[in-house]
């Protein structure tokens, strides 16, 4: 039984009242949902909240998953994406302007490339951030990323190109700053 069939079967059992089936599903998929949320937010607390939102939503909408349209993992990451976007919109509504501009802070000295990169990814505009997370961190193909985000493959490629150019510039700038500190 492949993962798609197994997930569909577990969801079916859950809908019939088997709580253990849902726990099994949660344990199988929570890490990927959490990692996606963590990559998108750069914040473990927010990622945990988003993961919780996703699975509680699934408890109440178990019938919304259609195995013929893709895997449960992809479905849950789409749900996570919507929750993150909604949360972000709510946060931006209440955040003072100063705080929004501070979101793109410079990396402190001594950060590794990975840490600088993590900060730089979080500071990217969402449409660029998402393709970087899907294609580079989750190592999805262009087609998979396009399907998950709901855009054309060509758009994924062009956004990824633009995002990587921005990130490479940031990393490069940081290296130069470290070489000749002001």
């Amino acid at each position, binding site marked *: 039984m492949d993962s798609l069939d197994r997930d569909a079967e577990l969801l079916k059992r859950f809908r019939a009242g088997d709580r253990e089936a849902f726990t099994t599903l949660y344990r199988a998929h929570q890490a990927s949902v959490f*990692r996606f949320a963590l990559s998108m937010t750069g914040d473990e607390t927010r990622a945990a909240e988003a993961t*919780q939102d996703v699975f509680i939503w699934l*408890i109440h909408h178990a019938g919304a998953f259609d195995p013929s349209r893709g895997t449960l993992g992809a479905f849950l990451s789409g749900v996570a994406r919507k929750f993150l976007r909604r949360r972000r919109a709510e946060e931006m509504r209440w955040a003072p302007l100063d705080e929004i501009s501070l979101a793109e802070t410079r990396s402190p000295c001594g950060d590794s490339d990975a840490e600088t990169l993590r900060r730089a990814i979080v500071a990217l505009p969402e449409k660029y951030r998402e393709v970087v997370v899907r294609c580079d961190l989750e190592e999805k193909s262009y087609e998979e990323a396009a399907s998950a985000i709901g855009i054309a493959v060509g758009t994924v490629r062009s956004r990824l190109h633009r995002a990587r150019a921005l990130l490479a510039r940031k990393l490069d700038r940081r290296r130069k700053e470290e070489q000749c500190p002001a």
Partner: protein
Amino acid sequence: MSGLSCREFERPLMDRARNRPMDAAVRMALTAHLEICAPCSGAIERQIRLSEAMEALAERTADASAPPSVERAILLELNAVHARARRRWIYAGAGAALAASVAMALWLGSARAPKKIEARVTPAPAAVMQAAVTAPVETAPVAAPVKRAPKRRVKPALKPEAPFVAIPYTPPLDPRERVDVVRMDMPVAALIAAGLPVGAADPASDVRTDVLVGQDGRARAVRLVAAVSSN
């Protein structure tokens, strides 16, 4: 090499830096271009460094998973959903039992013909309560031959002391549905089970009630009229 050529190599350059499969001819052309184009060879170095940093970042988060508190919260929600579903079944069962007991009471009431006083009411349910109060009520023939002056005798008993109380878990009445109001004596215990605030001290006693019966013959609401007897 012209800027246009560099632009043509933008995507292959990114694919190469990301270690993605690439057409052999494109790979050769890109290699040739990188040998003669300093900006593009600089760009690919930056992109390769970026890919390395990406790999490092992906490795750092590879083992990340949601904290145990998330699983606890989800299990709590699962339990709550399960409990709600169980309560729904219990309420549905209780509603069915109550409906059955009311139906039984109706049947028993009809068997005890001398006690039953029936008033057929035709207007919509919204007007039923008022109508039940003011409508002329006819008594069924009484077993013992009595002088026929029933209207005068039952009128005081029809004073609406209490409103109709809906019987839980019965389908709502349609506004245009015809209803019957059946007057009968019901055991206090059955009324308490239906959630009616009955003040009678003895649960074994009977009270006089008006029962609102829908077109389908099912009882929908009950109203207290007066206490009748104690056993």
